[in-house]
């Protein structure tokens, strides 16, 4: 997983994530619901990475970034959440987050099958 | 150029890393073909050569006093590249060119690939008198730049190529680049030879790159039958090899091993 996956796009103020447990059920079902309710176009070669919120926040804190992960449901995605105070252009942090996330990555093709 | 007249042996031409960047066979038409024929050829080759870009030529009329330049652009053909970027076909109203990009597969595979393309073209467009057939090999010699005592060791071009510019060192400092073209006629194969050498931006970090371009073309007594064309191309290839080997030093050839 590349650090660039954790970079904010120019138009973004927060990092968009999904609170997968909101969907309930087993992890497999949760991931399927995340894909189903995604507001971006999800392609078969895309992948989802799962990180514990606590570990995510701890990793950010280590790089002097105190983030807040807030549940912000949208009309199409009730599980949508946003990481506030997320830094722009901190590639050292992005690399750490990507490394952390790479421990639990599932391809969309595997999720949908 | 070297005085060698015999063809080099296979072992002399056997390099594990030949410097050929592009090998080209061209067939030029005596009379321009129409764009409808060019389009037919494009459709014929497109399935195997899906990367397509257009070729266009421009005319510019410059009026030094007053009005803006007048520009017109004419569509002349297409450049088609195969999926692996190993071969390119240029189809234009003036002719057809088949190119094989590096790594060079050898004369047999290259010439057979060219023959197949021209066969397909002939079947599509029927007969058109040829005014030129030519073979061109673009070589690039990448010379490592050495550092000694924190300074770049100057590269003596004559240590690698026997075609290089000379000028009085007392008048001009060492050259930072050059371009030379030698044009001559080779009576033994009745072909015009255009030999070009030029420094180019280095393709490999910390190297000096020199292009060594050998272009041989028959413009008189141009064969029209496929068997005769094949025979002339073989002769051109032999002559090209002789020129290539004769113009390079052993130090250059070591770079290709």
């Amino acid at each position, binding site marked *: 997983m590349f650090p660039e996956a954790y970079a904010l796009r120019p138009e973004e103020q927060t990092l968009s994530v999904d609170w997968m447990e909101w969907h309930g059920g087993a992890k497999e079902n949760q991931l399927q619901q995340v894909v189903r309710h995604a507001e971006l176009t999800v392609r078969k070669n895309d992948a989802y990475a799962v990180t514990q919120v606590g570990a995510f926040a701890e990793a950010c804190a280590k790089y002097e970034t105190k983030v807040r992960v807030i549940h912000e449901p949208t009309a199409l995605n009730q599980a949508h959440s946003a990481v506030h105070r997320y830094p722009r252009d901190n590639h050292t942090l992005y*690399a750490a987050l990507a490394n952390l996330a790479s421990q639990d990555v599932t391809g969309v093709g595997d999720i949908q099958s | 150029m070297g005085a060698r007249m015999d063809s080099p042996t296979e072992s002399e031409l056997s390099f594990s890393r030949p410097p050929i960047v592009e090998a080209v066979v061209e067939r030029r038409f005596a009379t321009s073909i129409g764009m409808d024929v060019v389009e037919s050829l494009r459709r014929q080759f497109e399935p195997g050569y899906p990367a397509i870009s*257009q070729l266009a030529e421009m005319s510019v009329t410059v009026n030094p006093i007053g009005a803006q330049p007048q520009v017109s652009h004419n569509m002349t053909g297409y450049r088609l590249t195969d999926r692996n970027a190993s071969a390119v076909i240029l189809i234009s109203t003036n002719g057809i060119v088949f190119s094989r990009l590096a790594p060079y597969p050898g004369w047999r595979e290259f010439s057979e690939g060219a023959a197949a393309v021209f066969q397909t073209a002939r079947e599509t467009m029927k007969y058109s008198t040829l005014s030129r057939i030519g073979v061109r090999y673009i070589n690039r010699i990448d010379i490592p730049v050495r550092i000694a005592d924190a300074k770049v060791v100057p590269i003596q071009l004559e240590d690698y190529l026997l075609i290089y510019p000379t000028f009085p060192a007392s008048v001009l400092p060492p050259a930072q680049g050059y371009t030379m073209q030698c044009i001559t006629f080779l009576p033994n194969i009745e072909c015009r030879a255009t030999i070009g050498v030029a420094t180019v931006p280095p393709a490999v970090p910390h190297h000096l790159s020199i292009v060594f371009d050998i272009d041989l073309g028959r413009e008189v007594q141009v064969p029209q039958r496929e068997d005769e064309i094949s025979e002339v191309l073989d002769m051109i290839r032999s002559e090209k090899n002789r020129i290539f080997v004769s113009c390079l030093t052993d130090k250059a050839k070591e770079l290709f091993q």
Partner: protein
Amino acid sequence: MTISTVGANYVISYGAGEVVVGASALSTTLGDLFSQGRRPPPSSETRTTRHIFKPLEETKEIRLFNIIAALKMAVAEVSMHLDPTWRARLFRQIDMLHEPDDWDDEDKLADQESFKTFLHMILQYGCMHGISLGIDNDGRILAGWEDGSSSLSFSFLPKDKVRWSVVHRQDEDIESASGISSLDRLPAVLQPYNPKAWYDNADNIPSR
């Protein structure tokens, strides 16, 4: 002065410069260049237009085919310095990265200057095996390795610059560093993070 076409645009090369313009700006641009004292070409007669130039409709598939070809041609130009097996694998990766289903019409395709920097790194340090390749939203080429808990990744910038990121993870402790360096400086900046583990996989170009 030479004028060539790239897709629907024109590239005007003159003296020390080069400018890319669309068809609508061509006359004006040429006029500007001439009035700035660039050496103009000789006068020429206007030819009768034979075929109206219509830019080829660039569908997503054609754009993808063309960029694949451009990247592979960049590799071909230096293929004499690359291991054939490694080159074949790189070509497969290039194909996989450009599956039409993975791209939208408005997506930025691979930046060729970024790809050139990637190739220069390979030429300078050897054909590194086991790398993963990617393309970011700005078209920059990405390359990365993972070695259990550690990871090294590069984002290739134009003119032989590289953004590097290295992570070493032990138990719950993560150590991460990143920076932007020239290709020449890569070994020096990565040295504290023991890049040998990755570079050991490289087949070095023999020294001369």
